[in-house]
């Protein structure tokens, strides 16, 4: 590579109480390249990015821009040095308009210290036009999609003339189509000479967009190479420090009786006439594009939302799911796609989070029996391999993968027969993903039925016995294991409602 080095970090060290987060980390990003960073959660990627962005201060080591040492003490200083960061979890104010959000904290002012709105409007229109974006400056952010808002963040970075843009898992919440738009933008930026640090768990994306790849493990850089010199298996083995013998621990097992049957489930607007069944020991996938209504169906089935009509039959008995409690009592549980919103109680500890849905089990003599509770929770946390300093540790301090295991542990001690897993591996690292697949297989062997909603086709294909495909609120197709291909699934996923009868 001929391009000069734009950003270099050299011998960075950072410790938090009890952990060494970064140990002698050095790497360099060249001008006009996309540099992907891979590593499991907790490998130190985010900590390093926060140091580059001035949120944390390194204990030792240097950051160099254009080979000159710089001090970065705050995100504002980072911005002045041309560094912009686009966070994985976008924090935005829903009531703000596009132009307000572009200039927040950096308002152009008039003579009297007043905000110069005509100037803002002018500059916003210019920016939008230059970047070929079709938004109106007065649109409120709450009316935009996640990818629109992400695009605005990029626009903001451009408006600050940033020449180093850090993107932390930018595709975790956007659709395939939107990813393509994002990639086009990244390519444009690359041609302008901007360098982009791209953090992601998704290998296919990394190979599509990156020029160079650096792998992190346990706070150190394992290796840094050009994309051409890497293959997926090498990266994964470098990330986890061992070779994964098999991506999916799938085994064919004998299936039992039909345990759950759904007939003609219909909601007012989000889905209609949904019928499917699941057998004991079976892993049934739900595929579809974003907005196809998969999550909505599962929420209604679990009692989080109401449905208009239709029948739910569990173990041959028609049940009226009024709320989540009914579902849990019928031994059906749901792991939500949005862990932070529907899964964890962040300010409470591991023990309380895990026992939350089964408290009645621990009542003896009219009060909670802590001994029994601790025993049960310890057992399940060991089985799930939850890594936490103690049961008293607050869940908000755990990594995403461990939080997910805490939520799963909560459901496991309710002793469910049917598990609905909505995007169970979203935002967690490869090692934890594999543990969750293994757990699913174990559960299936115990005759439990599993419904897996996922946007990642490889994992559906890898793990499921059958896959239902949804599009625009209806089931458009059902595939058996021998028919699984990405093409088949995508055909049904993009099918219009009218064609449904023809397809089935």
């Amino acid at each position: 590579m001929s391009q000069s080095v734009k950003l270099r970090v050299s011998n960075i060290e950072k410790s938090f109480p009890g952990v060494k987060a970064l140990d002698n980390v050095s790497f360099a990003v060249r001008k006009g390249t996309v540099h992907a960073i891979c590593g499991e959660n907790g490998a130190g990627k985010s900590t390093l990015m926060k140091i580059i962005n001035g949120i944390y201060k390194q204990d030792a080591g240097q950051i160099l821009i254009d080979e000159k040492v710089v001090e970065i003490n705050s995100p504002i200083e980072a911005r002045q040095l041309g560094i912009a960061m686009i966070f994985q979890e976008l924090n935005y104010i829903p009531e703000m308009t596009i132009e307000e959000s572009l200039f927040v904290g950096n308002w152009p002012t008039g003579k009297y210290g007043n905000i110069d709105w005509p100037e803002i409007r002018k500059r916003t229109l210019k920016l939008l036009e230059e970047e070929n974006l079709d938004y109106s400056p007065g649109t409120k952010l709450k009316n935009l999609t996640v990818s629109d808002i992400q695009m605005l963040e990029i626009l903001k970075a451009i408006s600050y003339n940033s020449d180093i843009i850090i993107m932390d898992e930018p595709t975790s919440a956007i659709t395939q189509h939107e990813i393509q738009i994002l990639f086009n933008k990244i390519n444009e930026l690359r041609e302008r000479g901007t360098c982009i640090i791209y953090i992601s768990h998704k290998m296919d994306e990394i190979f599509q967009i990156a020029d160079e790849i650096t792998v992190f493990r346990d706070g150190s850089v394992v290796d840094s190479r050009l994309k051409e010199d890497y293959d997926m298996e090498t990266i994964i083995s470098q990330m986890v420090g061992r070779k994964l013998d098999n991506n999916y621990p799938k085994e064919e097992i004998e299936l039992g009786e039909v345990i759950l049957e759904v007939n003609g489930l219909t909601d007012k607007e989000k889905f209609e006439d949904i019928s499917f069944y699941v057998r004991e020991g079976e892993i049934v996938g739900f595929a579809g594009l974003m907005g196809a209504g998969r999550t909505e169906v599962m929420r209604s089935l679990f009692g989080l939302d109401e449905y208009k009509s239709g029948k739910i039959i569990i173990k041959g008995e028609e049940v009226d799911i009024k709320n989540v409690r009914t579902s849990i009592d019928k031994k059906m549980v749901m792991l939500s796609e949005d862990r932070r919103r529907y899964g964890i109680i962040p300010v409470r500890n591991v023990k309380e989070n895990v026992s939350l849905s089964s408290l009645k089990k621990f009542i003896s003599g009219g009060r909670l029996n802590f001994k029994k509770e601790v025993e049960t929770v310890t057992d399940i946390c060991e089985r799930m391999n939850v890594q936490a300093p103690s049961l008293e540790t607050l869940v908000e301090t755990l990594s995403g993968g461990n939080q997910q295991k805490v939520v799963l542990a909560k459901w496991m001690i309710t002793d469910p027969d049917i598990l609905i897993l909505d995007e169970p591996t979203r935002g967690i690292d490869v090692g934890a993903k594999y543990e969750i697949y293994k757990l699913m297989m174990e559960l299936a062997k115990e005759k439990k039925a599993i419904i897996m909603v996922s946007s990642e086709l490889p994992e559906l294909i890898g793990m499921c016995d059958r896959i239902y495909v949804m599009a625009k609120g209806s089931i458009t197709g059902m595939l058996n294991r021998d028919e699984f291909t990405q093409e088949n699934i995508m055909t049904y996923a993009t099918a219009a409602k009218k064609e449904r009868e023809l397809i089935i």
Partner: protein
Amino acid sequence: MGKTRSSFISKYSIYLVLVALFLVSWIANENFVTAENLRNISTQIAVGTILAFGQTILIISGMLDLSSGSVLALAGVLSVSTYVSTGSLLFSFIVAIVIGVICNIINGIVITKFKVPPFIATLSMQTMARGAALLYTKGQNIYQIGDYIIFGQGRILGVPTPVIFLIITLIVTWYLLKYTVFGRSIYAIGGNEEAANASGINVDKIKMKAFIINGILVGISGVLFMSRVNGGMPNGAIGYESKALASAVIGGTSFTGGVGTAFGTLAGAFIVGFLDNIMVMVGVDSYLQQVVRGAIIALAVSYDIWAKSRETKGKISSAEPK
């Protein structure tokens, strides 16, 4: 080991403040640590602290009660008036509890069924209950309450009755929060209401229960208050809800929900009580006392947040508020 120490400090920070204040007061005035003075302080803070236990439960669950001072007055005057006309201590006590509970059931319904924010719902109850108390008494105090004074001025084995009520309500609140499904549900709802619901907790039912318990505590406070002031006073206990809120918050109850304990609130109440007492003893101007009392809220809470942030340092990013 550094981690263990800082988590010890954050867990017990408020008690350290209490002990420090106690020691400083002891040094500042020799009359501070006498059996009589400590008994006085306990008696004085009893009514406000019982209210504060109710606030603690509500704040932990992500709500609050701005109506408790007014409902206290309404429950109190109706209770006194019942005593004056029937002569039954038991019956008058029950009336206070029932009124407290009814007003709080209304709070609970407005909040859970009509989705009115607790701030607004209980603010409206504050005005209504005060109005009802004045309406019922035509704005006049009720005097000559006879034996009714034993509720607030009696002693059992030398311990003032308000302190006995304080101890009982403390134990009940502590037990509820620590050892019951209700308690765990309260923490879960305040910590993340949607996740609590998705975990099978009947959020509305638990919120109603929280208000009913608050109502009982407000009713008890009403009886104690009127008994201590020797009359049914419809204009009594104005501003008690904010005193109660202050005790709970100084005691480490988090306004963002999900965090707080009964003993923390008791410590918060004693911090305020000690401070008031020592300021009187060393002759601080009474207006200045108010200024200090206000400032101490900000100080205590700042200290608490600082001590806690030391524990989660480096994890701040994952602990950002929703």
